[in-house]
């Protein structure tokens, strides 16, 4: 009896001593929203991509400079007049349930993205007609037409690979997703937390230093920051611009930022129903006057403490597809008034539909005051986001202050908003210009980046004169974290990549 007690005591002692050394390291990340379905094929929110970045590896990834780098695929090249993409797959990769990652898995996944009912990825890779298995570690994606944005699509959810057996198991896959990324799914409590645990057989396990990641959605930015400040979180995304100074002044915290791929602007109803029949919708001079009445720099300063990036296109300055020779027009109230007089509409009334988001509403009020000085009578119609989408699609709006979270490929930022045949749910202005269409389509199939830039330059020429959208600013992704967190690199797509993160 005594011997057992001694052994038990020794075990306890050992546990107490070794406990801390063996303790799990957890990274707690505060998200700005609760993600939706954790199934790459069906997922539809931006914030879900942040979770995927830790859970589901994809064929290719991007570098902070927006170059494509290998992830599950190690090399690739185009063939068949750019209608075939041959990819060599990484060896020795396993899915989180032990299944091997191979060409058959890639074929399964691409076909799943294309054919699963309700798939949100189908439109992204619709040019792909099939996948050929060349050998166990090589596939060829067969396209119906050359499609330059394909690699970018494969660097996002459309390139994510899920375990085939798990996906076909029958139960709701999103309730327990199985992928090939550094962390595997453990638990999710809706609107509360998502818990991931280290995947021991991850192909790049040397870059992974945390045992667990906990994602905690906390929608209010003040409360999210409060959690970080009180030690309840280690890292938060979408820090409010007006809170950056507080983080910089706190020795226990540090911040990181990067210009995003997103934009915010005023979308104007040009041809979507009767609400387009007004000076703003019909006369480009009125739209130009509106743009000239806005001081983007002052707007940025007042609402975002000068932290965001003013812009006049769908790509931010610094992006390879940003058209440099069209500088941002400065404020010119006199010219704006002149244009309005020429258009015989000296005091146009403009109702701007604004989703009920605090920063957007502030920006709308700034625009209201600025444009008022040029003669515009701006009315702000605060509308719940879900309603505003619906109204925009139906054409029941005059102007809409809204943004787009941004895609790696410029096609994803402009095609669906400016093409004649774009889905009406996205091209809510019903803008249609044949020449623009030609250039957009050409940019889709052109092979080299410089060719594509040339085409987008032509698009910009038209677009920035027609102004279906007056681009105003590009948000910056703002992060705050405990000063002890090392290895954090911000990416333009805003995703938090766990590789390299460690706590000192």
């Amino acid at each position, binding site marked *: 009896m005594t011997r057992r007690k001694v052994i038990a005591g020794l075990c306890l002692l050992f546990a107490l001593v070794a406990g801390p050394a063996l303790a799990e390291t957890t990274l707690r990340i505060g998200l700005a929203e609760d993600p939706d379905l954790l199934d790459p094929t069906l997922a539809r929110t931006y914030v879900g991509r942040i979770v995927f970045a830790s859970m589901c590896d994809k064929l290719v990834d991007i570098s902070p400079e927006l170059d494509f780098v290998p992830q599950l695929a190690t090399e690739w090249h185009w063939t068949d007049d750019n209608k075939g993409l041959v990819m060599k797959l990484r060896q020795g990769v396993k899915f989180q349930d032990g299944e091997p990652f191979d060409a058959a898995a890639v074929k399964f996944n691409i076909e799943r993205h294309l054919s699963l009912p309700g798939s949100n990825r189908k439109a992204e890779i619709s040019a792909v007609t099939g996948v050929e298995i060349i050998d166990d570690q090589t596939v060829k994606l067969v396209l119906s037409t050359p499609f330059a944005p394909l690699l970018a699509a494969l660097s996002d959810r459309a390139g994510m690979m899920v375990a085939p057996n798990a996906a076909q198991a029958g139960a709701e896959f999103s309730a327990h997703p199985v992928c090939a990324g550094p962390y595997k799914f453990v638990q999710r409590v809706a609107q509360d937390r998502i818990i991931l645990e280290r995947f021991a057989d991850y192909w790049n396990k040397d870059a992974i230093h945390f045992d667990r990641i906990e994602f905690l959605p906390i929608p209010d930015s003040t409360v999210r920051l409060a959690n970080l400040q009180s030690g309840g979180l280690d890292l938060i995304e979408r820090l409010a611009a*007006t809170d950056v100074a507080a983080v910089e002044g706190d020795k226990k915290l540090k911040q990181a930022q990067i210009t995003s791929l997103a934009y915010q602007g005023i979308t104007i109803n040009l041809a979507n129903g009767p609400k387009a029949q007004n000076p703003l919708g019909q006369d480009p001079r009125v739209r130009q006057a509106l743009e000239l009445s806005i001081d983007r720099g002052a707007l940025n300063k007042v609402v975002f403490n000068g932290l965001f990036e003013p812009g006049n296109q769908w790509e931010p300055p610094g992006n390879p597809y940003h058209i440099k020779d069209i500088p941002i027009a400065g404020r010119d109230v006199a010219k704006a008034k002149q244009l309005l007089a020429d258009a015989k509409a000296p005091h146009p009334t403009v109702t701007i539909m604004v989703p009920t988001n605090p920063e957007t509403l502030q920006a709308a009020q700034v625009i209201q005051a600025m444009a008022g000085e040029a003669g515009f009578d701006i009315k702000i119609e605060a509308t719940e986001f879900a309603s505003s989408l619906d109204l925009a699609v139906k054409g029941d709006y005059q102007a809409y202050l809204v943004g787009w979270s941004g895609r790696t490929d410029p096609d994803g930022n402009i095609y669906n908003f400016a093409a004649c045949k774009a889905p009406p749910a996205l091209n809510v202005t019903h803008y249609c210009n044949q020449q623009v269409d030609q250039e957009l389509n050409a940019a889709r199939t052109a092979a080299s980046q410089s060719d594509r830039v040339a085409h987008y330059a032509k698009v910009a020429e038209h677009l920035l004169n027609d102004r279906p959208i007056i681009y105003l600013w590009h948000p910056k992704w703002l992060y705050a974290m405990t000063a002890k967190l090392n290895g954090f690199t911000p990416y333009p797509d805003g995703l938090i990549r766990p590789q390299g993160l460690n706590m000192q």
Partner: protein
Amino acid sequence: MTSETVETVVVEDDAGERPWQRALRRLVKRRAALIGLGVVIFFIILAVAAPLVSPYDPLATNWALVRKPPSAAHLFGTDELGRDVLARIIWGSRASLLAGLVSVSLALAVGVPIGLVSGYVGGILDGTVMRLIDAMLAIPFLILAIALAAFLGPSLSNAMIAIGISQMPIFARLTRGQVLSVKHEDYIEAARALGNPHRRIMMRHIFPNIVPPIMVQATLATAAAIIAEASLSFLGLGQQPPDPSWGSMLNTAKNFVSQAPWMSEWPGLAIFALVLSLNLFGDGLRDALDPRRG
């Protein structure tokens, strides 16, 4: 908003004093209630006199003065767009008071007649109406208000309608309860025996007796409505920018509590003062009108 109701049975006093005279006498004795009433009247005067009293235009922005602390020029400081906080408090009193008064008026205008008729007529009509009222009461007040406000769209007037509709069932039930307790009194029976038409009986005999508890509930409901407007503002429903209301000012200011505390202190204090005063006055009124004490 709660389900509490006031139960009183009003009868004439032995001393021959009319109920309202006695109530007024007792009310004057309760100092807290009088202070409450005084504060409420102060805010009403402030709201009415806003154009005369306000130092600035509440909508006038000033990019150079964003989030500046209180100073000689701006006694309460400036907000996130450089507007004067004091001016917005003064003008915002209109929105907050309206939110209270209009909502409750709507609730009274719909709820009291429903309760009156339902209680008086009785039978199947009463049964059906009460099931409908019960159904509305079974849905938590704020959830009903949110659903209604979302349905109508974010604006102050829609918020007032939503709050008013959500408060209506309480008044209906309260009125009906009062009607039921008075319906079988002798003087009512006598009036009917004399051949008085129903409408006359309802208006002249029943209604005056049920006014006191309804008044109390209305005062308390006004307080609750003002808080509800602030709550709806927190969710993005309610008064929309640039027009000020204390609730929406508080909602914007909550993101600047550390950097610019004056932005939230003043609207918060204003709401607190007005709502507390209404609650104190309402409680005092209830005490004064309750014949069981005194």
